[in-house]
């Protein structure tokens, strides 16, 4: 493990994320969203008729739905003009569904992911990795021993072809229907790429499965779909990482994530999001958790110009548990509006939400959360804890939780605190010989520790490096 850590420490994180590649693609859809574009995407992917129909229905819904801008304090989305983005770019690669040998990737794509540190991470700690470049998965691998147990990890386009029955049942029908919100509908119409993970009964995948999403082109939209099904008594940890370099035009990321946690299964879904600072990240993520199942969301939101993302879990069966651990970091010009939603729909369900945010240089963070305890969800409990750390007076930090409690035999607790970085803490560390920057750095690292300790070491290191990068030289 240590050599791996060293590698990541030595790598210049800024260079790792900010480099660009010459655009070179095999197919690029016209800008904007028309029925024609959708037919082209669907045909290009050789999709069955039912998927095309779902796409077209989602397009209709998209057109009818309002923008999510009527909310108090919602990020400004006026720049988001779907007619100005390129919804679909197929990279220039022969093998549909990605190559399975790293060395078969075109050099420029290989180079991109090498710089991001993906191959090293795979060698060391992952049971499988998928890499998406623009709209398509370009590399997909799963360790053989998992394949033998019946674990499926493939890209979504392939899943539509090879696991049609499962897809027909689960794809945007139960967890994230297109009617959920405008960007879920948009996603339903033009989704492309993403991962499908299927874990059979009684199977524990004890190493994380990873997907990495990279947006390289200017003014594009990325709409990957992730579908995870963990059957009874199974366990899996899925990690996604995302990045895009900065361009002058805005980019749109509008993914869809659906997770099905069956009885007594356990899914952890971890995200380290570092989209470029002109990306609008409008994602919809939802899990449905059956009896005694456990869903865990761990997320670090670093990048993007504006993020609106509230991973949500429906606790459907008795004894189901949901945990959220999130950290948001907003620097100059960033508006990170994120939180968690939990629906307690069965007795003895539990949830915990731990949200941390840091804002500096005029950045805005907002915790927006909903806890709903339905009538009949007896003996349920929830606890929400939000802490915000602010560095300066240009920054903003808001907390807007909503609690709807329809059942009396419950235990609901919400707590939030906001504060500046403690002068006394800084003084204490300085008196031990640390300079101001290092002292603050250390305090922030301590502040986010509950998140980093949930992540595999590579991601923890990456998250820390990203935060260091955000803070470099700008403390005073």
């Amino acid at each position, binding site marked *: 493990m240590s050599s791996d850590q060293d590698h990541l420490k030595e790598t210049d994180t800024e260079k790792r994320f900010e480099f660009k590649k010459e655009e070179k693609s095999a197919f690029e859809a016209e800008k904007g969203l028309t029925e024609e574009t959708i037919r082209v995407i669907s045909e290009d992917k050789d999709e069955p008729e039912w998927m095309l129909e779902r796409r077209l229905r989602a397009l209709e819904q998209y057109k009818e739905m309002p923008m999510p801008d009527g909310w108090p304090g919602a990020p400004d989305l006026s720049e988001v003009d779907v007619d100005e983005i390129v919804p679909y770019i197929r990279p220039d690669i022969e093998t549909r569904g990605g190559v399975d040998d790293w060395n078969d990737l075109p050099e420029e794509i290989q180079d991109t992911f090498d710089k991001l540190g993906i191959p090293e991470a795979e060698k060391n700690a992952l049971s499988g990795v998928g890499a998406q470049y623009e709209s398509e998965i370009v590399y997909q691998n799963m360790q053989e021993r998992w394949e033998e147990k019946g674990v499926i990890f493939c890209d979504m386009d392939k899943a539509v072809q090879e696991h049609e029955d499962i897809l027909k049942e689960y794809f945007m029908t139960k967890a994230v229907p297109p009617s959920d*919100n405008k960007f879920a509908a948009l996603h339903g119409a033009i989704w492309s790429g993403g991962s499908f993970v299927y874990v059979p009964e009684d199977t524990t995948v004890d190493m994380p499965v990873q997907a990495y999403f990279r947006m390289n082109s200017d003014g594009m939209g990325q709409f990957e779909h992730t579908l995870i099904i963990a059957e009874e008594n199974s366990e899996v940890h899925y990690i996604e990482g995302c990045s895009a370099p900065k361009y002058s035009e805005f980019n749109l990321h509008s993914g869809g994530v659906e997770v099905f946690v069956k009885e007594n299964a356990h899914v952890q879904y971890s995200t380290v999001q570092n989209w470029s600072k002109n990306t609008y990240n409008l994602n919809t993520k939802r899990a449905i958790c059956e009896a005694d199942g456990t869903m865990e969301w761990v997320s670090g939101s670093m990048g993007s110009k504006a993020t609106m993302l509230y991973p949500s879990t429906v606790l459907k069966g008795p004894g189901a548990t949901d945990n959220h651990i999130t950290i948001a970091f907003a620097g100059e010009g960033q508006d990170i509006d994120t939180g968690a939603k939990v629906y307690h729909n069965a007795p003895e369900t539990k949830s915990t939400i731990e949200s941390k945010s840091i804002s500096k240089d005029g950045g805005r963070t907002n915790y927006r959360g909903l806890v709903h305890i339905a*009538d009949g969800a007896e003996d349920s409990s929830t606890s929400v804890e939000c802490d915000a750390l602010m560095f300066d*007076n240009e920054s903003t930090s808001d907390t807007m939780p*909503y609690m709807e409690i329809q059942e009396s035999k*419950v235990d609901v607790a919400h707590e*939030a605190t906001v*504060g*500046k970085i403690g002068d006394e803490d800084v003084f204490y560390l300085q008196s031990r010989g640390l300079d101001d920057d290092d002292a603050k750095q250390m305090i922030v690292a301590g502040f986010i520790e509950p998140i980093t300790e949930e992540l595999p070491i590579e991601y923890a290191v990456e998250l820390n490096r990203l935060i260091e990068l955000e803070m470099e030289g700008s403390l005073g």
Partner: protein
Amino acid sequence: MSTQVHANLTEAQVEQISDDLGEPEWLLETRKDALAALEELEMPDVIRTPGRTWTNLDALDYESLVDPLDYAQDKDRIDADGVEVLSWSEALDEHADLVEEHFGSVVDPQRDYLTALSTALFSAGTVVYVPEGVDAEDVKIRTTMNSQSLFNYTLVLAEESSSVTILERQGTGETTDADQYYSGIVEVVAEENAYVQYGALQNLSEETYNFQVKRGHADTYATVNWIDGNIGSRLTKSNVETRLLGDSSESQILGAFFGHEDQHFDIASRVWHEAEHTTADLVTRGVLDDDARSVYEGVQDVGREAWDTSSYQRENTLMLSDDSEADASPKLIINNHDTEASHSATVGQVDAEDMFYMTSRGVDPESAKNMLVEGFYVPVLEEVQVDELREDLDQLIYERLRE
């Protein structure tokens, strides 16, 4: 907007109310402007989450609820040494300039549809004038509603370095079976170094729909404290708010409610920190029984220039029945990092261990529960400085528990 009331309201009615109170031209004009604005104004903001409106004010049939020229009421006003506690006509006679200067300066007459309706139609109310340097004991105002609809307007002016505590009680006299509508606006102006505690105890009949805005402006070193006790009414939408406009100003907002049967309380406590070294403390405790429902919104808004802010908020709800519903949204909006702010909210039942402890000491379960519920309110009650308000509130809670 079809359910709204303005269709059967006329300028002539407004003129008649104004004439009855012997008002000057400017106030009549303010009323007429508010009446005209009804066309454009929206209902007060309520909390909405996707697919759900937490309190539906649009559903009320204001046309049948509001009878502009029927405002039968009893009013008791007990003043204290040095304070003038005046009816509107008295106030307009004696302090025309002060009233004109401050009326509508704290609560925008056209803030929303229901506030404008109140401005256009208010028939009675009170002006409390506390001259500079006066330290006053308890002022008491009791309003008894004997009409189908009643619009009340209270203006409190506390001049520099004065202090006053005010207890306002709202109740219903002759009850009819018909639905009633009560609307109350309270404006508090606390000038430099003034202290105002305004306690309200609302025990209207349970056929009454109740809309209230209580809002204060606190100047440098001033304090505006509120107590908002809600026991009666069918539906209450109550907004209790302070803007901390001067350095080192303070506000405390205490709330207590007890809902039973199908009562609905929508309570908001809001504070804006707009100057340096300001402090706010928001504490609300509520109990719900039967089918009752509460909606709580708490807002602590710390402005860009509000250096060295301390702001705290706690909201706790006890649910005694399985058909009740408690919704809460405590919000923190922080634009200055030199802030210490926290909020917490809890919802739960009477603590099982406490019950066990009491019953094991020989207290029967019903009495044990009642004692625990009464004890639950103590942190709010002990902050209430007006003895009469504290005792009345305590008594109403006691009675409700034994109904």
